[in-house]
């Protein structure tokens, strides 16, 4: 299992600002290692975010999203909302983390 995401969600005037930092190498498949061998592609493809069990955001990534992907989005919500962020990568690895809106 990969490292946990960092999730920060703050509410102001009925709008929740969500910032997510994932830990992932996001290998494009185009890089070569020291011996000249191509490093295989390995990157996050799917991500979704649920607030109070309802989907509020969905992303599909290509290999051009930076290493340790960062996302910032906003939805209409409230303090105390339970957030769940889930990603899946090209190897089928996945990770889910939770956070509370403050």
């Amino acid at each position, binding site marked *: 299992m990969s490292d946990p995401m960092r999730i920060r969600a703050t509410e102001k005037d009925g*709008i929740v600002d969500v910032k997510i930092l994932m830990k992932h190498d*996001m290998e*494009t498949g*185009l*890089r*070569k290692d020291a011996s000249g061998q191509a490093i295989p592609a390995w990157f996050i*493809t*799917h*991500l*979704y975010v649920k607030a109070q069990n309802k*989907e*509020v*955001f*969905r*992303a*599909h*990534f*290509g*290999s*051009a*999203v*930076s*290493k340790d*992907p*960062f*996302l*910032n*989005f*906003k*939805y*209409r*919500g409230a303090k105390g909302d339970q957030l769940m962020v*889930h990603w*899946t990568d090209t190897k089928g690895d*996945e990770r889910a983390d939770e956070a509370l809106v403050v």
Partner: protein
Amino acid sequence: MNQQRRMLLQHGSLFSLMASAGLISLCQAQEWNQAAFSGKNVADVLRTFNTSLPENSEAIHFNAPDIAENGAVVPVGISTTLKAEQIAILVEKNPNTLAAHFFLPEDTESFVVTRIKMAETSNVYAFVKTSGKWLMAQKEIKVTLGGCGG
């Protein structure tokens, strides 16, 4: 004809079986668009989106640097006064043009910020789908140090 229908039914039931068995998550069930993400140029991606080149829109605010010192981490932000249903980021000169594709439900603001990799100086497009129609904003971002390859 009948044979095709049977094949379709078999595939369909296999897919739902895999989903229920947890072999593929619900997340994957909403398909990652392989054709769109392997597109080598803007035209390839447009074809998978079923659209011609969208019109430029003043209502789309595309926030990105003029010059990116490090192509591996280029911050891009897109926001619009329109209700965005989808937002896509395309980098014209990257090996694969489509960088990211976002889906925004009803209660989500028309706003997203992320960081992308750029191989070289390129036009970057922010596509926004609103009321079923794509619109766009574009910007050239100069890259001093590429973000792909060795």
